[in-house]
């Protein structure tokens, strides 16, 4: 039953993909020559004018270009021509650094706030104000103070991934079941040991959920941030290829951004499953 459902779902997925690619192909293919024109002019205008080909690349163009990229992912021909592997590596490194810094700040801080009703109340207005600020709004301030575009991008990732983790940690820590805390109390377990042996494992699923939301947001934001700071990264690549009017490369980049985002989410989902306990 279960395996047959999975099989059927897989078949439907493949069919939908095939339909999408088919429609895409039909919509963008070359049609008959549009009109007679001066051959010199036709050469200048390219297939779009002469064959009625859509300016949008078809799936075959994208596939061929993608294959080219996959064959040489790490080439480096100077600042404006680097392999996709290198660009993705830059983006992942920025997200990774900013995200890890956010983990290091958000989880201990969330623990403190969650365990102390005073801090929780005192810091709440700040969190409420800071949380809805678009991470990109920080960019000029970051560029002005840090004076390094690459570090500014990392800062933007840091600031956007900290809130979901912080809020989830606070919530997870504050809502640990009273009876588990009471068990630790009757066993005269000290505060530090209680934090690590009762509160941390009890709050871990909630904390990991926050971390999973954060990595998703961080990956969304890095593309926009790199468009602004430029130089390297998949976001810069998208903008650079737009300036080159290479829609094929833009589509490839969009596809890769989606796949990497999915992989990051899956990694966090696996960690979440590891710390989740059945009750």
């Amino acid at each position, binding site marked *: 039953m279960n395996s047959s459902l999975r099989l059927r779902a897989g078949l439907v997925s493949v069919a939908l993909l095939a339909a999408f690619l088919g429609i895409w192909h039909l919509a963008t293919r070359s049609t008959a020559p549009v009109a007679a024109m001066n051959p010199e002019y036709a050469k200048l205008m390219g297939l779009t004018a002469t064959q009625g080909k859509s300016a949008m690349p078809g799936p075959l163009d994208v596939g061929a270009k993608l294959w080219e990229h996959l064959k040489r992912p790490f080439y480096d021909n100077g600042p404006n021509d680097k392999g996709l592997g290198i660009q993705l590596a830059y983006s992942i490194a920025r997200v990774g650094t900013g995200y890890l810094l956010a983990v290091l700040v958000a989880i201990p801080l969330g623990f403190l706030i969650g365990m102390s009703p005073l801090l929780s109340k005192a810091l709440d207005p700040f969190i409420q104000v800071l949380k809805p600020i678009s991470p990109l709004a920080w960019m000029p301030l970051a560029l002005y103070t840090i004076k390094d575009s690459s570090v500014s991008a990392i800062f933007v990732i840091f600031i956007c991934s900290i809130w979901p983790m912080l809020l989830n940690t606070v919530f997870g820590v504050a809502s640990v*079941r009273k*009876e*588990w805390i*009471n*068990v630790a*109390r*009757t*066993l*005269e*377990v000290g505060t530090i040991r209680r934090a690590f*042996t*009762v509160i941390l*494992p*009890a709050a871990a699923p909630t904390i990991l959920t926050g971390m999973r939301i954060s990595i998703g947001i961080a990956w969304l934001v890095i593309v926009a941030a790199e468009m602004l700071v430029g130089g390297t990264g998949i976001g810069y690549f998208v903008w650079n290829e737009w300036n080159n009017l290479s829609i094929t490369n833009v589509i490839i980049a969009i596809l890769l951004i989606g796949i990497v985002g999915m992989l990051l989410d899956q990694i966090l989902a696996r960690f979440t499953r590891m710390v989740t*306990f*059945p*009750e």
Partner: protein
Amino acid sequence: MTDKFVSIEGIAKRYPGASGATTTVFENLWLSMARGEFCCVIGHSGCGKTTVLNILAGLDAPSEGAVIVDGQAIAGTSLDRAVIFQSHALLPWRTVLGNVAYAVSSKWRSWDRAKVKAHAQTFIDLVGLTGSEHKRPSELSGGMKQRVGIARALSITPKMMLMDEPFSALDALTRGTLQDEVRRICLETGQTAFMITHDVDEAIYLADKIFLMTNGPGAVLAEVVENPLPRDRGRTDLHRHPLYYALRNHIIDFLVTRSKTFAAETPNHDPRNVPVVQIGKPGLTIASNGEEQRQTRMPGTNPGLTA
């Protein structure tokens, strides 16, 4: 009455209510227990039974008064007083062994892993869970979970055990088996136990003394009923004992009617000298009518039947 192992001295619990008024759950509550005694508290919901237990455990502080255990006023929780929670309160991310070992390593911090494990294992064996050490609480039935809770409480070899309706969430069969085990373990180890229950038969089977509390708010300890049944009583022939029904009827009467009317009917009730009720005198064997056989004495006079 000579050996006051546990002595609750004039405690009160008040909560701030709406518009500045305070709600008094109970006040001026006096109660004592001898070493090795098994005491049950019976009363309706809201009479503050659980609060008394939490104060004894140190989880809650009384608004007034003090609690003295083994000659020392208690301040906060202690490894000397183990609690068996109604909802078993096992840590779901730890195995059975892990849950018991957590308690053991909390008490004896310098012990190495092997020693902790061996000690925990003896208590898992004691409650009959051998073979389930590596299961997680979610894989256990309600009765097995509560056994782990009992093993965890016993493993720290406490001076007394506090139980808050430990068996109320279990089915009747499992409850019976666990009552047998708790009774056996308490008798074998001479454990002092304080238990809250709603189950009259459970109290009759387990307790040496039964504390009857009136309805809250403003609940008082109305009577201390001494259990007249022999110490070697068994579950199967408990109800055949001549004093069983007299005792049971006395408690049920209290719960049904007197718990409501006690305060009005007994205006000069002295909370420091709560009447001790003895069902049937030592010499009498047949109790055809509980009312005639009931004898109330004030503490400090004729010790009467002792366990």
